[in-house]
């Protein structure tokens, strides 16, 4: 790190968090003044999904199918609310729970195989969930989807109080902000606990972790499950917020989008996915006048990260000048695991 008092001082202020807080405050002001909060709410929820993807990534697993869990959580919550008539406030966490259980099952079978095949497996999982949703129209509405999902609106305890959060944009924003901040706090605490340290150890080198006696598979499944829970919760809240649900956003591109948020923002720090999500989702908004040319800008941001900022946007805050030299020691270890170096023989 640079022996520079200015930089050290900035670092101690946790500059990225300060910036994030300022951005949130600005968003609050905007909504209060009548700006349509849809995109902001979308960004907030995707931040949670991206951060949970990063939590899984910490333990060295690259999940290419995370959007599937958003779909599971969303559909579970929506169906519980619509078919059983339960309050959305109950259904959303339940949706997250159901997503977590499916993540547990999937993780249990997938962690048995090496990292590269794990990633392939999650990719197929992502695809498969989309196919399965489309193939069961009686249950899930097929590719047309569900409409009329109840909002996260009224909470009423008869005789005591009654609040309707669906009343105004600002109150909806507050609900989503609350869910986001709570989820991020929990994820942050978990990451900076003993479990989080174990995950980092596994992520740096699974073999060494095994040799020290860490049960690698167990901790990986735990990471996958927790990540699945929060992703599912996101999907559920999104479903209730949108009031409609269709499988199209949850397929391969949805999962890869989430991965892009994490990578562009910087997978090395907790606040990285926050920046990645904001940047990649805000670009289409800010430049909405350019309509169909927007993906060029998004691709440009990705290329910038690939060639200039290998540690993502968050890498800018870590060690200011040296982030540009492209040192990627963490990624090195992950590459060797993820690419299955031995498996590339050719026989013909």
């Amino acid at each position, binding site marked *: 790190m640079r022996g520079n008092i200015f930089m050290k001082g900035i670092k101690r202020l946790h500059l990225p968090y300060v910036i994030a807080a300022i951005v949130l405050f600005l968003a609050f002001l905007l909504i209060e003044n009548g700006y349509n909060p849809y995109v902001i709410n979308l960004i907030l929820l995707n931040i949670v999904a991206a951060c949970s993807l990063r939590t899984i990534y910490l333990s060295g697993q690259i999940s290419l199918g995370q959007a599937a869990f958003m779909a599971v959580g969303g559909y579970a919550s929506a169906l519980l609310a619509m078919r059983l008539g339960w309050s959305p406030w109950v259904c959303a966490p339940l949706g997250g729970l159901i997503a977590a259980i499916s993540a547990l099952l999937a993780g249990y079978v997938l962690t048995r195989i090496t990292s590269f*095949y794990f990633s392939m497996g999650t990719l197929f999982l992502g695809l498969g969930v989309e196919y399965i949703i489309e193939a069961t129209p009686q249950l899930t509405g097929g590719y047309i989807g569900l409409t009329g999902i109840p909002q996260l609106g009224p909470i009423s305890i008869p005789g005591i109080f009654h609040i309707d959060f669906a009343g105004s944009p600002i109150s909806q924003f507050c609900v989503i902000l609350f869910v986001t901040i709570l989820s991020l706090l929990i994820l942050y605490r978990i990451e900076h606990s003993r479990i989080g340290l174990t995950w980092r150890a596994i992520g740096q080198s699974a073999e060494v972790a095994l040799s020290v006696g860490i049960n690698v598979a167990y901790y990986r499944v735990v990471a996958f499950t927790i990540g699945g829970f929060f992703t599912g919760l996101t999907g559920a809240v999104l479903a209730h917020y949108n009031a409609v649900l269709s499988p199209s956003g949850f397929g391969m591109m949805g999962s890869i989008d989430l991965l892009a948020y994490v990578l562009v923002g910087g997978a090395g720090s907790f606040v990285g996915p926050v920046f990645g999500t904001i940047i990649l989702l805000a670009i289409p908004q800010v430049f909405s006048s350019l309509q169909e*040319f927007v993906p060029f800008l998004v691709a440009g941001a990705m290329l910038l990260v690939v060639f200039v900022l290998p540690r993502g946007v968050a890498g800018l805050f870590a060690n200011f000048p040296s982030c540009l030299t492209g040192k990627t020691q963490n990624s090195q270890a*992950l590459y060797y695991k993820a690419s*299955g170096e031995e498996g*590339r023989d*050719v026989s013909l």
Partner: protein
Amino acid sequence: MVEQYLLNVLVLSSIYIIVTLGFALTFSIAGILNLAHGVIYMLGGYGLYYFWVKLGLNPGVALLLVVLVTGIIGLTLEKVGFRRCLDSFERMILFGLAVILIVETGINVTMGATAKAIPPLLPGVVHIWSASVDATRIGVFVISGLLLAATTVFVRNTKLGQEMLAVSEDREGALLQGIDINRVSGLACALGAGLAGIAGALMGSVMSLDPFMGDGMLMKAFEIITIAGIGSLEGILPAGLVLGSIDSILPTFIGGNVSSALGFCFVFVLLLMRPQGIFGRKA
């Protein structure tokens, strides 16, 4: 009736096999997980449209041009981007994704998102046994078969092919033997891209073109590679036939969505039980 099914299976399988072969070559030899493979396939289709329908060139010449152009695109992508990303899986994915976005948006903006039709490559109808099938489909199958045979001969018998095999087996060892791995990797990428391009052109002439046709094909390539096994090139032939059969025959009986879901279940279970695929080598 059966002949119709059989031909559909053969046509679809051969396209799948060509695309997957290109993808596998790029992965095995150059070490690149080329997410942009799908868009190169799509570009091949649109290239045929452009060279043949728009510029009015002879269809055979148009096909050759498609191979050349897509090959050059593959070479460029490897040189400019993927080579820098060899140390980092995440950057490779990001780069591929960026290319997908740029190319798909470019085509979307210039050509429009509605499906385009290309006139059939070979006019008329051929009668085989009791069925009458488009001559184009027969042509596609024949061309694909020839391509497959040519690629096999090339890889086994030519010096460049042997160099490619060497690089895929052991990169440093090949370097020590004096093989220029950069050149070989680049050419392997070009070959892979060229295969994808011509597959796209052939498929485009049988079906129609749209800017997003590459995404589905990329997924099929992943599925076939999973079935066949990561390191195995010869496994792609049977795996492609299996998936081609499933995708051609099943939808008429139980509907497209269910058959896709079933296909996924099959591949997923296979991945769990035997991750190295049916023919792969790594246990």
